[in-house]
């Protein structure tokens, strides 16, 4: 089962998340099987219905990777990031990012949708391989919506911790910072590209395509 789950994560949640119905009431939600709530495609379809969606790949230089880490104030070492832009009638509706991270010993996949104003519009748990007891309940995830990348987006500042799910709280806050930093750096690169085009300068030669490393921002 564990291997199957790992395969599901590695396969970017391509498998259907259908869970067979249990006969009769199941035990309380403590521990238990890992949860896959939504596939990536399902999450995008639900977040952006009737939108034109485009997967965009950004190759980061070492300096850009370092800038993401500095902005995020959390470790970041990716050289390739993926963003899913959704437009309706040409108008940008939002940009989705997926972050796979370890909570304690197992992984969580989050989708974070960033609105045109660079603030978090939706945060949804796609998969959670730790016991569901580690998923923060109550109002916790709601603290992220509407937030941008600033010093307040930190545990013990605008984001309150949660008893019993400290590791998930840390991992989620780090993921939010990481993805917003990626979003900001992508925006800076796009702006730079526009400026260069306006000056009539040639675009830099594309970096050789590299296979995306596993994990993190995908």
């Amino acid at each position: 089962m564990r291997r199957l789950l790992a395969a599901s994560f590695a396969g970017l949640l391509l498998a259907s998340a259908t869970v067979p119905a249990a006969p009769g009431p199941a035990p309380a939600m403590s521990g238990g099987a890992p949860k896959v709530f939504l596939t990536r495609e399902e999450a995008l379809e639900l977040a952006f219905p009737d939108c034109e969606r485009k997967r965009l790949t950004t190759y980061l230089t070492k300096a850009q990777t370092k800038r993401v880490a500095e902005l995020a104030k959390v470790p970041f070492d990716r050289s390739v990031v993926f963003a899913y832009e959704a437009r309706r009638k040409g108008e940008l509706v939002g940009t989705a990012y997926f972050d796979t991270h370890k909570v304690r010993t197992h992984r969580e996949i989050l989708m974070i949708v960033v609105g045109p104003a660079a603030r978090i519009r939706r945060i949804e748990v796609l998969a959670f391989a730790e016991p569901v007891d580690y998923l923060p309940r109550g109002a916790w995830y709601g603290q992220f919506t509407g937030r941008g990348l600033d010093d307040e987006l930190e545990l013990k500042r605008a984001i309150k911790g949660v008893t019993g799910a400290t590791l998930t709280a840390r991992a989620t806050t780090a993921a939010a910072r990481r993805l917003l930093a990626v979003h900001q750096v992508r925006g800076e690169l796009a702006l730079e590209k526009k400026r260069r085009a306006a000056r009539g300068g040639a675009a830099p030669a594309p970096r050789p395509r590299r296979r995306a490393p596993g994990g993190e921002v995908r």
Partner: protein
Amino acid sequence: MITLTSLLVACAPAAELVEIERRVAVMGTNLEVRLAAGERMAGLRASERALRALEETERRLSTWLADSELARLNAAALGVPHALSEALAADLGAAAAWSRATGGAFDPTVGSLVAAWDLRGPGRVPSPAELRGALAACGLDGLRLDGGDATRLREGLALEEGGFGKGIGLDAALATLADCDVRNVLLDLGGQIALAAWSEPVPLAVADPRERGRPCLELSLRSGSVATSGNGERGLDAGGRPIGHLLDPRTGRPAPDFGSLTVVARDAIAADCLSTGLFVLGPEAALAFALERDGIEVLVLEPAGGGLRARATPGLRARLRPLIEAVTLEFVAAATSTTPSPQADSLER
């Protein structure tokens, strides 16, 4: 709001149904959606409709958003009628009705008090002068609701959706799901639960007010909504002094803490408003309130000695089961009620 937890992972849907479960943030809180449908994508689309209904409610009511309709009303000029959308007029009408029913113990106009105690921040104790000013700004008599218009009549009057927004959102979400071919619907919005289309009762865990991570009672329902209030959930601390987040609009101060109070009602708006209002009224008045009304049931949990005293209205008799030995469960007599207390099934929609 103290979190209620669904004890259920799956509750015997027909074999051909596909279960959907989602965890997503909305209205500044967590939403857990569970439902069953004949086909996965249909179920997911239905869950998204429920989520969109909540997002629409948030855009209308959230005073955390400067451009929400309610925030614009809060900023409207004094004495000038302000046109409301049909939805907001209905929301405010419903909140005002529950405010009147509780004699003002639930009050949607406590925005000035929330600000004075800094309940949206780390919390603080206001000076007596600040408290007097904030209290003077509260009260529904400072707002004239006239069909599709609202007129602010008092400087500083601020509507605060914290006590009714979730209920309105949950009712809207269930209403939109009524058109979908789904069953076994459970929506958990930051601890307030709404249920629909279950053929069997769903066991829900009621938290121990002394240790909110620990379930102490099981409450079984097939439909309706459940909301619990207690001061254990949000530990605000004003300079080392703990302060409760449930304010008594009549005194301007946090309501005395006695444990927790759970309201079961047919509609989420009723459960939401009353869980706050009846906590403010206190255990005895809360139980008496529910005994006098159809479709409202109340459970009061109070630490007593080393254990927990649970008192409930008779309509919950067949629905409650202690989960820990320390709970002493008793049902209050319906003899004082002017209208017979509802039987168990009268809670069902």
